[in-house]
């Protein structure tokens, strides 16, 4: 376990190799091999470390590499402290789970990308893997970081990689815009996050997670007043809102779909966007001491879940649907953490990572097959052409819809149950969201894989290509050298194998967290929740609370009822989708026309982007231009005015000087010149005249001598 620092560093090395040498020298396979190998190494190390962690008595391990910022004395609330930040990594159940998710899914997506990105030119291909590896480096740093600042390194680093990968096709203005938007919106969140970190240091005199948790657990729960802990949590939550795309900072995530699809799968579904949830879970002790902020978290999560789901209902871009679904599911996770079910939140984080990565990769496969077409209205009946993709995506859709037996069911059900205990209102929101989720996911499946093929015709003999198997066998790539599109086709093995693995994961990942109500029958406990528990409580508190773990539990009957109800709702959603998009497709169009107003509001995403544009962005740019004008005209104008005044004064002085002062000087010179006329005449320039003068001097001296001698 002492080598856990190698887990992030390995992909870092891969990124450095590809970035420094690869872009110039490596061929495509070499670059992909390096990237995949480093990720594979990280995955192996993660599994190894995780296994050791499972076997260890004390499930926490901290590795300190070196000083990053050495201790510097600084005032805190309790007198003089020292501000310091070591390069320290922490492996505990929560980060253990996270490294498995990140390196596991990261590895699969690397494999997938090596095929998906194949028609990029070599330079872009290598660059892509460099960024992807760099992302994994930062993401693993984020989850393994032992202090707020090390986490912040990863936190900002993944933001950078997200920026680079969204803007990967930088020649598209929309992609570059989306990247910038993501980074700047994230920065707004970071603004809160760093202030939170400052306040944490000021309050506790340390920024180590464990020490902060210990210190916070000694403080009273701020249920009545909005105290310092609440302030900290609120600030941190602002950071989480930015990173995890919650209201009001969710706007960047749908735009982020401009990036390549594997990126959307890895960064904008499975890992980076869950960092906010992870961070809140990491500071569970702090948050549980700030119930008012917890309420805010839950409400923000619930409302985001619902709002994003409603937008997802009407989107036609396959990736946009998934993006809003991601926002919605992240809202779910925050809802869970907000009601105190940190374990449930983390559990959903894990299952979501599987099925959402699966769905994104599947959609990538479809987009690939459709020659980069993302509009679902131009697809249809794809199950014929790409059965593997269809089956795996279908599993993913079932999982996210919460169909019993698949992973999403377990995690979602747990959240619903916990929410019901905390607040039936929020539960209501969540259940409605669950129904919508089922609906729009199956709308996606049905529009894409069922019905009539609505896409463009392709070159060659359409009949011959109609057979999917034939297409796959004839040309496992689909795009030959001349870039002639031969119609939809199944993706190559490198893409479908990760899909299959993820499908298995999406199906079975839930069984680590079987709810007690079922688990009691089979004799299996909720393994994951129990496993994660130590990460969510302070160490001292954990010992104290060992025995009495009985928070208000629901009765079995109620729980069964809730479970059944949510399954029913999900089923209704699926049925409705089937009705509208398979049996009577016309009906969907009619509905949209009848409710045109609502439909327009939803397709335009509640006009939130427009609102931000006209307020925040226009305001900032306006003030920028205004201040620039002020700077040019007022501040600089004052300087130039002073300069002008000085010059005016100097002109006056100049006149005075020229005619009065200089006049006097010239007068003196004139007098001298005129007076010297006689003397000037003596200067003949004849050498001999000067010699005569000399001689005359000698003569005068001699005469004087004689006079003195004889007369005197």
């Amino acid at each position, binding site marked *: 376990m002492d080598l856990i620092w190698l887990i992030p560093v390995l992909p870092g090395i891969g990124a450095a190799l590809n970035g420094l040498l690869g872009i110039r020298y490596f061929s495509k396979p070499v670059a992909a091999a390096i990237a995949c190998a480093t990720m594979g190494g990280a995955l192996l190390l993660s599994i190894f470390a995780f296994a050791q962690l499972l076997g260890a008595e004390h499930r926490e391990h901290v590795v300190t590499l070196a000083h990053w910022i050495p201790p510097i004395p600084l005032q805190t609330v309790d007198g003089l402290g020292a501000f310091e930040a070591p390069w320290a990594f922490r492996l505990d159940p929560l980060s253990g789970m996270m490294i498995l998710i990140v390196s596991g899914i990261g590895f699969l997506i690397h494999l997938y990308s090596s095929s998906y990105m194949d028609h990029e030119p070599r330079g872009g291909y290598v660059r892509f893997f460099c960024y992807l590896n760099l992302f994994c480096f930062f993401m693993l740093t984020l989850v393994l970081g032992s202090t707020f600042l090390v986490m912040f390194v990863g936190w900002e680093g993944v933001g950078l990689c997200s920026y680079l990968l969204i803007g990967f096709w930088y020649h598209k203005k929309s992609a570059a815009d989306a990247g910038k938007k993501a980074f700047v919106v994230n920065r707004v969140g970071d603004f809160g996050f760093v202030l939170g970190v400052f306040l944490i240091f000021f309050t506790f005199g340390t920024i180590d997670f464990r020490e902060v948790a210990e210190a916070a657990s000694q403080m009273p729960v701020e249920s009545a007043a909005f105290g310092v802990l609440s302030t900290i949590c609120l600030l941190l939550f602002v950071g989480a809102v930015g990173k995890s795309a919650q209201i009001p900072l969710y706007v960047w995530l749908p735009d982020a779909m401009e990036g390549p699809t594997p990126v959307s799968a890895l960064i904008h579904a499975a890992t980076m966007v869950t960092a906010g949830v992870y961070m809140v879970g990491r500071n569970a002790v702090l948050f549980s001491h700030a119930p008012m902020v917890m309420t805010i978290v839950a409400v923000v999560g619930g409302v985001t879940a619902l709002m994003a789901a409603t937008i997802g209902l009407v989107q036609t871009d396959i990736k946009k649907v998934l993006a809003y679904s991601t926002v919605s599911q992240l809202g779910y996770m925050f809802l869970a953490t907000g009601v105190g079910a940190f374990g449930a939140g983390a559990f959903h984080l894990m299952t979501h990572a599987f099925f959402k990565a699966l769905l994104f990769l599947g959609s990538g496969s479809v987009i690939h097959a459709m020659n980069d077409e993302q509009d679902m209205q131009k697809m249809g009946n794809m199950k014929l052409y790409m059965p593997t993709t269809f089956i795996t995506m279908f599993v993913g859709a079932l999982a996210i819809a919460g169909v019993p037996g698949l992973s999403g069911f377990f995690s979602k059900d747990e959240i619903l149950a916990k929410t019901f205990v905390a607040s039936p209102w929020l539960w209501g929101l969540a259940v409605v969201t669950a129904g919508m989720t089922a609906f729009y996911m199956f709308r996606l499946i049905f529009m894409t894989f069922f019905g009539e093929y609505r896409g463009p015709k392709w070159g060659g003999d359409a009949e011959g290509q109609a057979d999917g198997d034939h297409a796959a066998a004839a040309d496992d790539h689909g795009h030959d050298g001349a870039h002639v599109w031969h119609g939809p086709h199944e993706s190559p093995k490198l893409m479908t194998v990760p899909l299959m693995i993820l499908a298995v994961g999406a199906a079975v990942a839930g069984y680590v967290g079987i709810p007690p109500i079922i688990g009691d029958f089979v004799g299996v406990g909720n393994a994951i929740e129990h496993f994660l528990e130590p990460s969510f409580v302070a160490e001292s508190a954990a010992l104290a609370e060992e025995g009495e773990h009985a928070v208000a539990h629901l009765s079995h009957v109620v729980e069964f009822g809730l479970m059944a109800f949510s399954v029913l709702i999900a089923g209704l959603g699926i049925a409705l989708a089937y009705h509208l998009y398979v049996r009577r497709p016309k009906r969907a169009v009619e509905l949209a026309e009848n409710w045109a107003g609502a439909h327009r509001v939803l397709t335009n995403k509640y006009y939130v982007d427009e609102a931000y544009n006209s307020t925040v962005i226009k305001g900032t740019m306006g003030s920028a231009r205004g201040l620039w004008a002020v700077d040019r005209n007022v501040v600089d104008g004052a300087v130039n005015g002073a300069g002008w005044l000085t010059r005016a004064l100097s002109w006056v002085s100049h006149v005075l000087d020229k005619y009065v002062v200089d006049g006097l000087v010239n007068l003196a010179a004139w007098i001298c010149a005129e007076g010297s006329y006689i003397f000037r005449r003596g200067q003949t320039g004849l050498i001999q005249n000067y010699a005569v003068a000399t*001689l005359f001097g*000698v003569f005068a001296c*001699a005469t004087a001598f*004689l006079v003195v001698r004889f007369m005197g």
Partner: protein
Amino acid sequence: MAETIVFYTLSVLILGLAILVVTAKNAVHSVVALVMTFLCVAALYVVLEAEFLAVIQILVYAGGIVVLYLFVVMLVNLGRSPEEHQDPRRLSVFGLGLAGAMLLEVAGIVVYSYNRSASTVTAPAAASPVQGNTQELGWLLYTDYLIPFELASVLLLVAMVGAIVLAKRDL
């Protein structure tokens, strides 16, 4: 008595030739008179028991410097008379008068002062390990006056370099 005759003879020759030097119209004549003057001065040195200087006088002046003058006179081969142009402001006549007056004055002072103090002060020469004019002179030059002597040689070197630089045509 012989010394007196020699002195007067030489004096007349020297002054006469000197007058010829400054009055001759032709520069070549001037140079020839100058040579003669120098030779006479050398003879006077012999009278004054300064044999070494007499030789030097002949070698350096009559042999060296005058040849130099001759060369220059030959080189400066003027089509027109060199003294054609005259600046109206020059004070030659005044200078001439002044020079005559000076001569009278100085002669007067000399004669007067020699008559008043007949007793000549003799400063015996420092004991010298060598005999003879040339040897003693050499002794002095290379002992007490070594540094001035060397400086004089440096001066000559500098003058030589300078003269070459000045006279060289395309520099």
